[in-house]
């Protein structure tokens, strides 16, 4: 069973994504910020990371960059709520990172997320 790490500082969004993915029978682990996410990933690498961009402690871009260096096979779907300075520029910049396969802006359509997840994990398996 594929394992997905969801990193988001917003509890509601994190829980919603967890439920959405578990409904599709994925194993989901969650973290509320980038630092926590990296720790979890290091203990046991996930098949896919879905991460928010603007977060306290360690933001999405840093997290993706750091994990990408350690784990070349890292696959990421980046999502952002926009706002707060140059959030969209940030989201744009994540596209430059090879590990980021898809990026979405909130409020995304669940259908789009699931389609991307399916695709990425299908290739993996």
């Amino acid at each position, binding site marked *: 069973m594929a394992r997905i790490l969801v990193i988001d500082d*917003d509890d509601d969004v994190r829980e919603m994504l967890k*439920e959405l993915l578990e409904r599709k029978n994925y194993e989901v682990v969650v973290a509320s910020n980038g630092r926590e996410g990296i720790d979890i990933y290091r203990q046991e690498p996930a098949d896919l990371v879905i991460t928010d961009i603007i977060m306290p402690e360690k933001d999405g871009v840093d997290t993706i960059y750091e994990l990408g260096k350690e784990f070349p096979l890292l696959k990421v779907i980046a999502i952002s709520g926009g706002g707060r300075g140059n*959030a969209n520029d940030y989201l744009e910049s994540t596209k430059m990172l090879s590990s980021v396969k898809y990026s979405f802006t909130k409020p995304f*359509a*669940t259908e789009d997320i699931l389609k991307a997840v399916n695709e990425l994990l299908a290739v993996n398996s």
Partner: protein
Amino acid sequence: MLESFRNRGLLLATEFAKKVAEGVLIEDILLLDNSANKLETYPDIGYVSIYGDLNTKLITRIFIIETFEDNQTLKSLPQETYLSSLLRDKKRIPVLEILTPVIYENEIVGAVQLGMSLQRIDKEVMNRTRSSIFLVTVFIMLSLMVSYLLSLSITQPINALVHGVKMISAGKLSHIVESNDKSEIGELADSINKMTADLRNTTVSINILEKEQQRFRDVAESSGDWIWEVDAQGRYVYSNHTVENILGYKSEYILGKFFYDFYPPNEKEEFMTKVFTAFHNKKEIKDFINYGLRKDGNNIIIVTTGVPILDPEGKMVGYRGVNRDITKTKQASDEKENLQRQLLQSQKMESIGTMASGIAHNFNNILATIRGYTEMALDDTDQNSRTHSDLQKVIKGVISAQKLAQQMLIYSRSYKEEAQNIAISPVIKEVLSMFKASVKGAIEIRENIDNNCGYVLADSNQIQHVILNICTNSVHSMNKPNGFIEISLSRISIDVGLASRHKDLKEGDYVKISIEDNGHGIDKDTLDRVFEPFFTTKEVGKGTGLGLSMVQGIIKSYNGEITVESEVGKGTIFTIYLPRTNAI
């Protein structure tokens, strides 16, 4: 005189002849010598000779040498007395010679010859005359000196007085008339000195006064302020020349006029009341802001300060003070205030922007959650069920909310559409044709498009959104026939001067889009706030208040600038500047 002289000679001769008769008789020479010597005491006897019997000369005594001639002899003895006056040759001295017989016992025994001269007497007289002349001279000299000294004692103080008075009249008030005597002149000198001292004191105070006056005049005339004095009725009795710079009237014109003659008609009553209240209470007028009506008809802003002038009884007899023209200062401070307001405005916008982006972020998170759960719920419901269609409406609401959040982000400039090089004139033309169709000829649309404006780096949809937004506002401002909206597009080169007046523009090539209407215009207070987010003049629910703030956000995101000018009743002009680029 000669008669008495002759008689005296005769007497002297006959008496002497009697005296020596015995001696002649016996020819006693010693006795005769003694007798002759005694004659020396007579100053008028020049010489004496005594003859004896047989014509012999017994002795001769000469007392005055010039009177005697040695060669004379006697031919015979005289029988009686003879008298002759002779002029001795050398010095032509007159000599009276007396020859008289010497008789002894009625017998002529000899003769006496006596020479009388006035020479000694003359000498004496001369000597006496000389000494008297000397004495007289000395006396005269002395009296002259005495009178001179006497006169000096009188004229010197008078001269000193005259000199002193001359000096004083020449303005040398420090001069003191010297006088030591106690006479009337001394008293006069003392009086003059006293008078001069008084005059000196008066003059010193006059000098001080004059200096003070000069100082006041200099200060007053060099002052940039209008210095004035009015009487108790408010009539100008003094004004410095600065009034001409302030009111345009010469100070001579002002004198005699009332202070309220120079108030603008609208404010006259208000200002008069205030000033006369101060007059009534004898109160100081302090920093009283009022208006002045200039000769050229313009109003100026004046700040007045004045103090009451009180007579010794405390009665107010006038006011004096200073008027300062603060029109320019006021304008400058208004301008400053305006700038501060603009700064405050931009700070406000900035903070609203930050807030908007923060709200948008959280909003999107909430919307993501709602959408996620709703979609999961949709998955769980029968597609034909009512719940399904209801949940679909929730999704629709989420999408609308998402659009609003996006608008907020546009405003906060953290949302950027795809900007690319676009030819600006076709974009404007396209939106204008759409717009024309929507107004359906109710308003005249004038186009003034330069087709050679080149390219700008922007998103064409957003530019069209901007133009439509402004044009729609214009349509809403039209409540009269013959309304028009004129849209112009041209190239413009921004120079240093223009750049300095527009904070978001730099030197270089720009395109200028202006949208002008003849609608009802925007009042000043509203104009200041048109670009403020959530500011709207429309009824609640009719407008979000984000329209123009979004427009400004879009233009700013392309490094452009939008300005607005408006006059109530005449219309409004929006001008947009966008940097021109070279087509790739």
